């Protein structure tokens, strides 16, 4: 080998494979304003749709008069439930096994519900006419309190199913009951509580919030009458699911539906579901024979499409007096709004909520969740989290603090004592989940050492003494969260959506010149898939990442996949990508053996080539093999170099992390300032550290918003009072804290590249960490649980109740 030959390490670096901070390929278009988002799409003859919406939360619709609206010049049609009934689309099935009105049919069940859809030549005319649709309502008593939903005198929300004793998830005990779902061993848990030295019980509320991506939900439907084909561009996190659901609903054969998700301006769960706007745009295009665009405005977005959380979790922990946990119980009331349009794997009405035992070795545990109907918007999406995981993490991390407080133990010490130990992995939880890998103590120790946890506690002690002496009006809170996620839905034995197993896919074609394309069933909404999938391929196949195009979002070209949410892209499609690469590599090895005239087994892989064992001068690079695959394959071998993999994961992955927050609370105004936030994440193998860090920054910022101010709030008349960015708290750069990130690496043993997924960890761990910090500030005064969001007035009120303003 002469000096000019690059070493393996040099060649590896040039590939920009896994572990490298590769700059994002998608940025080239985004920084020039050349992204292609749905509202950028313009088609000849395109019409615009706009909704007339209900001002009432609960009312009978006595009459809808569209005469004036239809008479506005430029209005092409006005659609109501009566129109939709002619095509049997007044109602649509939801992902959760319920049905949902597309347009108000007889009554409205939440404020801003869709009542009529106006289609016009331009969006201005559509808006004018939507205002002119005359609707006569008769008000009905409404209920927006889930804890009252199953009381005897609660107004019946869903008259269409009021006598149905059986829902999609089993028996219903009240007309407003959606389901009861349980997991764990109740008898065993009850026994643990009966025998416990110490128990705590707290109602922990995770309020209704909304993912609020900067781009709202939108679509363009274009029905070609001659071909009988529908093309639907839209903000879809799961384009194939939309195609299948669209076909089942519309009866258009699935091969005649082309779903395209172009660039998406953030999703965070908001863009998983199917919304009335999509159905109406499709119907409008079929009716008018012209393309129809529907674009939500921000108020519509916040008040109608996809809320998250709204979980009321009565959480109990049992422990020995020396601080070992012995049991966990949680009874939850889940507010599903007017229709159960929750985006979960179909068999899991409360998602993966039974991850609630978290990172701790609970010998016994039981959860029970009752879903209820209220006069609020439907949804229940996983806002930057795997299905209901953030709710679970919040409940357990809050409850662990409360128990530590009761035991008079430091919350870190209490956690350390109960964390699942490294040697226990794979660990089977009391709920039956098999945690794939973890090294929790190492992570927590590293976090505590990095922030100087002991010194912080000493400083806090001094601060509290100074507060008691009246020398300061600030309290210092130290928040800790140790979370375990369950992501990568999911194994087909556990997970399906409407019967479709939650596998995902990758199809890779290597072209003769050694470049290639990879198409996947997932869909980036900002996660940088075009960059990271290519890095997996670069490492697996030894081809430069720059030579691999990554394409998602077109159901005609991409293999079937279940889409991007629940941190599933890397765990599932990332695995599919690696597996498809390995098929290609196996074929390439055979070609190499043929060309080098050796046996397959005499070859070894070296970064970007197969070389003859013991004779590294004899090799064939993957680029050479790609060329060969198209012109000199071994006899009997098919030409070409491509592979497809549908990956059904053997298990979920279980990312984890240790977060610490230092918060200063101004007792006189209730405002809180994050002084420091440290996040240690373990997401297994790290594909692109730059992108991981970006994901964590973003997730922490969303968590900060949720913990400190976000709430979709309804007044008692059912009016949503926080449906614009004036009142729905999205932090600006000024409020947002600075983030410190760190990591450990514990690969997933069952994943082909050991990766676990990361996008949602910071939201799952961040929310309890901020909340624990605020709560910790007041804990020494005997306060156990101050409810989120921790905005100024709520914190001030908590301080006031503790007598701090006297």
């Amino acid at each position, binding site marked *: 080998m002469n000096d000019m030959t690059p070493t393996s390490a040099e060649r590896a670096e040039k590939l920009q494979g896994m572990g490298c901070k590769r700059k994002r390929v998608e940025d080239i278009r985004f920084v020039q304003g050349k992204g292609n988002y749905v509202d950028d799409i313009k088609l000849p003859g395109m019409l615009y749709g706009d909704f007339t919406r209900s001002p009432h939360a609960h009312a009978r619709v006595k009459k809808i008069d569209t005469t004036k609206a239809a008479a506005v010049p430029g209005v092409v049609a006005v659609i109501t439930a009566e129109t939709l009934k002619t095509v049997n689309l007044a109602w649509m099935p939801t992902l959760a096994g319920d049905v949902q009105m597309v347009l108000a049919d007889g009554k409205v069940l939440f404020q801003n519900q869709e009542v009529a859809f106006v289609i016009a030549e331009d969006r201005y005319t559509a808006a004018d006419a939507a205002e002119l649709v005359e609707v006569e309502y008769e008000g009905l008593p409404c209920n927006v309190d889930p804890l009252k939903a199953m009381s005897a005198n609660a107004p019946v929300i869903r008259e269409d199913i009021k006598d149905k004793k059986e829902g999609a998830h089993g028996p219903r005990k009240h007309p407003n009951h959606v389901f009861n779902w349980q997991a764990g061993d109740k008898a065993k848990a009850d026994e643990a509580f009966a025998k416990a030295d110490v128990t705590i019980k707290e109602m922990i509320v995770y309020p209704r919030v909304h993912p609020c991506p900067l781009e*709202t939900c939108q679509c363009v439907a274009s029905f070609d009458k001659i071909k009988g084909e529908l093309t639907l561009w839209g903000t879809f996190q799961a384009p194939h699911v939309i195609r299948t659901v669209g076909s089942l609903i519309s009866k258009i054969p699935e091969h005649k539906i082309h779903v395209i998700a172009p660039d998406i301006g953030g999703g965070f769960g908001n863009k998983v579901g199917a919304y009335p706007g999509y159905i109406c745009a499709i119907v409008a295009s079929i009716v008018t024979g012209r393309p129809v665009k529907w674009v939500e405005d921000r108020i519509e977005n916040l008040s109608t499409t996809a809320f998250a959380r709204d979980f009321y979790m009565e959480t109990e922990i049992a422990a020995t007096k020396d601080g070992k946990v012995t049991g966990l119980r949680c009874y939850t009331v889940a507010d599903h709004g007017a229709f159960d349009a929750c985006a979960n794997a179909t068999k899991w009405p409360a998602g993966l909520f039974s991850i609630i035992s978290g990172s701790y070795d609970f010998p016994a545990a039981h959860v029970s969740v009752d879903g209820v109907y209220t006069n609020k918007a439907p949804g229940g999406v996983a806002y930057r989290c795997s299905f209901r995981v953030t709710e679970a993490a919040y409940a357990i991390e809050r409850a662990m603090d409360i128990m530590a407080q009761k035991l008079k133990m430091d919350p870190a010490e209490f956690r350390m004592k109960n964390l699942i130990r490294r040697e226990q992995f794979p660990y089977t939880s009391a709920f039956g989940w098999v945690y794939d890998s973890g090294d929790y103590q190492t992570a927590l120790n590293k976090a505590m050492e990095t922030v100087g946890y002991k010194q912080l506690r000493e400083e806090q002690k001094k601060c509290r003494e100074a507060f008691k002496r009246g020398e300061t009006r600030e309290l210092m809170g130290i928040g800790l969260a140790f979370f375990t996620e369950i992501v990568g839905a999911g194994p087909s034995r556990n997970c399906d959506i409407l019967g479709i197993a939650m596998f995902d896919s990758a199809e890779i074609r290597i072209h003769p010149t050694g470049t290639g394309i990879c198409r996947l069933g997932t869909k980036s909404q900002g996660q940088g898939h075009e960059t990271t999938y290519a890095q997996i391929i670069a490492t697996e196949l030894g081809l430069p990442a720059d030579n691999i195009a990554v394409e998602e979002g077109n159901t005609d070209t991409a293999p079937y996949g279940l889409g991007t949410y629940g941190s599933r892209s890397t765990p599932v499609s990332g695995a599919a990508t690696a597996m498809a690469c390995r098929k290609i590599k196996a074929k390439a090895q055979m070609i190499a053996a043929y060309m080098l005239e050796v046996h397959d087994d005499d070859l070894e892989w070296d970064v970007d080539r197969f070389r003859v064992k013991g004779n590294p001068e004899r090799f064939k690079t993957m680029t050479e093999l790609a060329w060969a695959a198209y012109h000199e394959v071994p006899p009997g071998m098919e030409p070409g170099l491509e592979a497809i993999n549908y990956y059904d994961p053997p298990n979920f992955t279980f990312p984890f992390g240790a977060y610490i927050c230092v918060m200063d609370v101004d007792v006189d105004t209730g405002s809180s300032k994050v002084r420091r936030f440290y996040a240690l994440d373990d997401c297994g193998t790290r594909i692109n550290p730059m992108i991981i860090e970006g994901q964590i920054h973003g997730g922490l910022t969303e968590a900060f918003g949720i913990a400190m101010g976000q709430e979709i709030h309804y007044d008692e008349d059912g009016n949503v009072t926080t449906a614009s960015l004036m009142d729905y708290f999205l932090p600006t750069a000024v409020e947002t804290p600075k983030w410190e990130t760190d990591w450990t690496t514990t690969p997933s043993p069952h994943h082909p590249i050991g990766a676990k997924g990361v996008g949602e960890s910071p939201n799952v761990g961040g929310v309890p960490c901020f909340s624990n910090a605020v709560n910790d500030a007041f804990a020494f005064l005997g306060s156990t649980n101050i409810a989120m969001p921790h905005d100024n007035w709520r914190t001030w009120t908590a301080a006031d109740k503790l007598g701090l303003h006297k």
Partner: protein
Amino acid sequence: MAKSQVSMTVNDKKVEGLVEPRMLLIHFLREQLHLTGPHIGCDTSHCGACTVDLDGKSVKSCTMFAVQVNGADIRTIEGMAAADGTLHALQEGFREMHGLQCGFCTPGMIVRAYRLLQENKDPTEDEIRFGISGNLCRCTGYQNIVKAIQYAAAKISGVPFQEAAE
């Protein structure tokens, strides 16, 4: 309603259009001029995704009528790169520092940062955060946007960029 003739300079080009008085500037740019870089994010002038540079000011084009800016000189994200395609230092900085994810806020953010750097060539981190507080980002948590703007400030001033210690 009678339409009005408007003319303005957009990205160094004279443009004209016939608009209803109520036509929002963002719609004029996006739909008549096909400049789809500026986006609509909130409709209520909170998010800044629609930000364009207008006569030396950063403005939210969703809260302005096209007729109001008749005769104005406007720059959008599409007019940031040099004529030969060389990216502006900010565009480069956003990519280098991973200052964007979904890209939806990016055009407004870059155009706003452009004016900020025109007014303050060497802003502190706090000045940057305050200076971009009219632009919301849901993906990045701002930290890398701040770095991207620092990168551009350094590049424009011809000094080496030093990442602030974490």
